[in-house]
């Protein structure tokens, strides 16, 4: 398998916690511009996989490459984020004592060192970008409110908004529609498909309607490695997937 | 407003030094009460102004300023640690007031606005070492200088080292060790003393350990079985007050050098103790050396004010020199031109009842020597605040005021 042309390349990755193998010889490749849905039982290692990619967890063994050549295991979270990997966390994590708008402002793509931040003034382009995102996440009327005062689902949206603001090359989206209504779920699917037109995306979700709507290749993880891969129909027809994941 | 004469009392009533200084505040209040009972001073009542500098050195300066500028006191009695005194010195000279400093200290100072009623090193340390070297003291040949790491012990030990060497003690027979303030785990130090003392020569410890650290020090000495007959400890900062916190049975025979002990058997002292117990409403409360220093200092000030007929500091400062008042050990203490006083030096052994028993006393009074004869840079200095010299650091070699002065 060649690494070039891949945006993300995991090979033989393993990680264990106190002897428990959360990721077990996992190999996964994502092409540039591809969107991939990842499913799998609770505890399969989906979030841990994202932890590894974003530098939060160091793999015990295996290769992790970004953009064909960057060895991610040699970089820390901030560097990886700067390279263009953005992440939405499973549990929404936002800056609670900042307003919605400031949350987005801090996420907005741009220089990441101290002095520019110290002398930064918001440009018209930035203001427009923020307005756009606020429109997408439908929090425009709450832009001056503290993020602490959002409901769970609203925080989910804000996190998606921050991801958009970051404008990364690769988006890792962990359970974006948890806690959303069916209508919002559809909305999110549309949004992600939109993004996927010029970005690479990995989406983790348990909501099969949503995954179906994305209409992309699906990988099912189980006990830290790939159990099945293919179209959703193919994967959900897999007996083992039904057994460990979908249920009868 | 001018119907009373105000006297400032600048002793810590909280913080680490409260343990020692609070007693001095009470002693001062008692002395002022007594003076008022005698009809006050210059026909006016004395009024004590008590403030709490809280064991905080900059606060000492602030409170001194407050006492002088705001409360307009005629004189201040206060301070314990040298650093607190150093902190207030500039205030007293700037605002030209009087401080009575009642605690033994390292010397190397003589200020016009300060009267030192505690012991200078030659009024405590040197006689103490002399005693230990004497036959009665056990003919000590080997010395541990154990102190808290600050200026008073450092300087005292420097003087003692020079003195011991001048008496033929070899360098390897002197061990010096310092511990931090409030030190409480003495195991290693006490066992080092034990070890140093087992070299076949009579060994003694000279302790300038300060304040709180003494109780755990003596407890450890007792528990490790260091007996006074074997390795006596001679302390300069342990008085009756410190012993009150200790079971002294295992410590009988350890020594202290002071200018006063509560056990001194004189009518003046008996009366002083009785008054103190009455004033403080507790028959168990002890008296100690710095209290006597305040007793002397206060009486000197009263006498000087009467002599000058005014409380104006400048006049009182001039009138102070030569004033002589009874001390509590049966003699008279006199204020010398260097603003230090004459005192007897007593060596006492700790008794099981928490008191000291005098085992040696200098035959006459010793005059406080502000500039030590055993330090190279100060042996040529003298202080004399009388006109026309009026100098705290006159160099007898160069004949100039202002220290060594190479210029």
């Amino acid at each position, binding site marked *: 398998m060649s690494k070039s042309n891949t945006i993300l390349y995991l090979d033989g990755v393993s990680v264990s*916690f*106190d002897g428990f193998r959360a990721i077990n010889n996992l190999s996964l490749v994502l092409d540039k511009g591809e969107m991939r849905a990842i499913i799998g039982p609770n505890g399969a290692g989906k979030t841990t996989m994202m932890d590894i990619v974003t530098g939060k967890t160091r793999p015990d063994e295996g290769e992790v490459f970004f953009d064909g050549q960057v060895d991610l295991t040699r970089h820390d979270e901030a560097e990886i984020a700067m390279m263009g990997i953005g992440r939405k966390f499973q549990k929404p994590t936002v800056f609670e004592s900042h307003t919605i708008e400031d949350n987005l402002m801090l996420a907005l793509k741009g220089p990441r060192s101290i002095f520019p931040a110290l002398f930064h003034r918001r440009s018209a382009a930035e203001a427009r970008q923020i307005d756009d995102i606020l429109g997408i996440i439908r929090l425009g009327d709450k832009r001056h409110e503290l993020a602490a005062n959002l409901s769970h689902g609203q925080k989910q949206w804000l996190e998606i908004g921050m991801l958009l603001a970051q404008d990364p090359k690769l988006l890792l989206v962990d359970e974006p529609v948890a806690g959303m209504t069916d209508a919002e779920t559809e909305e999110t699917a549309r949004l992600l498909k939109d993004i996927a037109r010029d970005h690479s995306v990995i989406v983790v979700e348990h909501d099969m309607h949503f995954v179906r709507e994305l209409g992309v290749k699906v990988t099912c993880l189980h006990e830290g490695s790939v159990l099945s891969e293919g179209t959703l129909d193919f994967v959900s027809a897999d007996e083992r997937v039904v057994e460990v994941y979908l249920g009868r | 407003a001018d119907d009373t004469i105000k006297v400032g009392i600048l002793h810590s*009533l*909280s*913080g*680490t030094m*409260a*343990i020692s200084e*609070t*007693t001095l505040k009470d002693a001062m209040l008692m002395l002022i009460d007594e003076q008022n009972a005698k009809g006050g001073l210059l026909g006016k009542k004395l009024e004590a102004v008590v403030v709490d500098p809280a064991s905080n050195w900059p606060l000492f300066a602030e409170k001194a300023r407050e006492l002088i500028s705001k409360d307009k006191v005629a004189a201040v009695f206060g301070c314990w640690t040298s650093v607190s005194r150093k902190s207030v010195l500039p205030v007293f000279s700037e605002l030209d007031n009087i401080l009575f400093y009642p605690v033994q200290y390292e010397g190397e100072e003589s200020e016009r606005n300060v009267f030192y009623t505690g012991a200078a090193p030659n009024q405590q340390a040197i006689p103490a070492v002399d005693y230990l070297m004497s*036959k*009665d*003291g*056990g*003919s000590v040949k080997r010395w541990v200088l154990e102190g808290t*790491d600050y200026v008073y012990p450092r300087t005292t030990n420097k003087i003692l080292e020079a003195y011991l060497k001048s008496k033929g003690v070899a360098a390897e027979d002197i061990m010096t*060790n*310092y*511990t*931090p303030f*409030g*030190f*409480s*785990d003495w*195991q*290693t*130090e006490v*066992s*080092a003393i034990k*070890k140093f003392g*087992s*070299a*076949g020569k009579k060994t003694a410890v000279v302790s300038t350990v300060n304040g*709180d650290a003494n*109780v*755990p020090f003596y*407890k*450890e000495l*007792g*528990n*490790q*079985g260091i007996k*006074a*007959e074997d390795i*006596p400890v001679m302390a300069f900062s342990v008085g009756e*007050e410190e012993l*009150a*916190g*200790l*079971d002294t049975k295992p410590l*009988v*025979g350890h*020594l202290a050098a002071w200018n006063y002990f509560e056990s001194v058997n004189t009518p003046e002292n008996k009366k002083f103790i009785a008054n103190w117990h009455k004033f403080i409403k507790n028959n168990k409360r002890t008296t100690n050396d710095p209290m006597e220093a305040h007793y002397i200092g206060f009486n000197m000030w009263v006498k000087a004010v009467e002599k000058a007929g005014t409380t104006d500091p400048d006049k009182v400062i001039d009138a102070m020199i030569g004033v002589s008042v009874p001390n509590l050990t049966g003699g008279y203490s006199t204020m010398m031109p260097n603003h230090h006083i004459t005192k007897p030096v007593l060596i006492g*052994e700790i*008794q*099981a*009842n*928490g008191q000291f*028993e005098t*085992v040696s006393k200098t035959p006459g009074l010793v005059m406080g020597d502000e500039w030590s004869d055993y330090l190279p840079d100060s042996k040529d200095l003298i202080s004399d605040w009388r006109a026309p010299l009026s100098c705290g650091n006159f160099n007898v070699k160069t004949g100039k005021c202002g220290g060594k002065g190479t210029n």
Partner: protein
Amino acid sequence: MKIFHAMGLTLLLLLTTLSPSGAAEADLRAIIAKFATVTDFSETGAVVQELTATGDPAVERPLAALAEGNLYIRTADSMVFVGKEGDENVQLFDPLSGEAAGEASEDDITKITVNNTLRRAIRDALGTLTLGSKDPTVRIAAADTMFKTPDAANIEPLDAAIVSETVASVKALLEQARAASILVSDKPDADKLAAIALIGSRGDRDAVSLLTSVEANASGAVKDAATAAIANINSTLAFWDAGQNIWYGISLGSVLLLAAIGLAITFGVMGVINMAHGEMVMLGAYTTFVVQQVIRTSFPGLFDWSLVIALPLAFLVAAFVGLAIERGVIRFLYGRPLETLLATWGVSLILQQAVRSIFGPTNQEVGNPSWMSGSFDIGQLAITWNRLWILVFALTVFGVLLYVMKRTPWGLQMRAVTANRRMAASMGIRTPWVDALTFALGSGIAGIAGVALSQIDNVSPNLGRGYIIDSFMVVVFGGVGNLWGTLVGAFSLGIVNKFLEPYAGAVLGKIVVLVLIILFIQKRPRGLFALKGRAVEA
């Protein structure tokens, strides 16, 4: 000095020549009566010499009384008595027979003063006199004294004593004392070499001390043997020194553990930045003081039990105050842990001043019961009883606490409540109770730590301040929220400290320890026993 040497010599000569019945009682009384006329220490010394010269074992009573400062002269008739201080008056006893002889007020009698030199002389003299005592501990003391003050004249009485000695350990000591005496005698070198070998086998500091003076005064083979023996002993002593340092470290560690363990609950488990922790320790110490005060005045026989009685009381007093603080202040601050710093700081100021106002600013005397006093040796290790008991006590407290936290429902609820108070309530846990009792428990434990610390430190209003920083260091160094961390943290800081102290001195040693803590935290940013995993990650 010379006079005392001479005294010992004369005494020993007499001992061997005079019959055991000794001088007539009347003669002794005549000598004792001379105490009434002494004016200084050398005259007292002369009387002592005269008394010991009689060789009569009966002089032990007056001499021992003199050494302890209990010999008095009745002013009215210049009679000499042994006195025992009572509440009001001094009870008087006959100096020879020990029969009661009435009482006298302090003003009617004068004490015969002694100094260290006299005390030492009396001790030496009594040593030889008591060589034949029935009590083996007295014989051991006698042998010990004679070892430390060797004298050629001791050889003969020691020979006699060795022959009649039945207890093996005492016999060995007597032989060492004899060897010491041989070294200062003019016996042939062969005897001296044997003596050096025997003394060398003692292997302790007293042996080094003795041999050092031999080394200085002897020459030739004896000197060499002494030098070799000293070197030999010193090398084993170096080994024992390391052991001694470990012991010191452990005992310092146990003090740190005791001081910190209550904080491991209030801060480590509950998250209250409890600046009043030290004051809880102080309250425990003052409780001990009050208990001892009551015992001293009302039940003097119970003194040895004072600490045992003080323990539960100290726990209750501190726990009660803790409870009051929790209910009065801290419970309003859950969810705002930083503010607990401000409030508890305020509380600590108030408690300090309250104690100062009630008991006064000065140190209070807390005595050691007999079982907490003195020391014993294991090999060349000197172990003081109070430190040993504190260690045992600290470990016991730790064990009990660990059990409570890990094995009881209460412990579980405590941890649940502090993790998430609101959710714990929804699990049916009565959070206010758990909070109040947990804080009371932590405070109570600080209180019993105060009982132990009163044995080695000042009991003053400042007591707590001295421990608060160390306690926080220990808890944090060990890893907050982990009791084992507190245990290991306390002992490792204690041992490192005590290993550095002999080399660096106490001040530098402490600085080095602090710097090591700073560096260590860089390596392990969550303490020694850091919890790992996503459960703790921020």
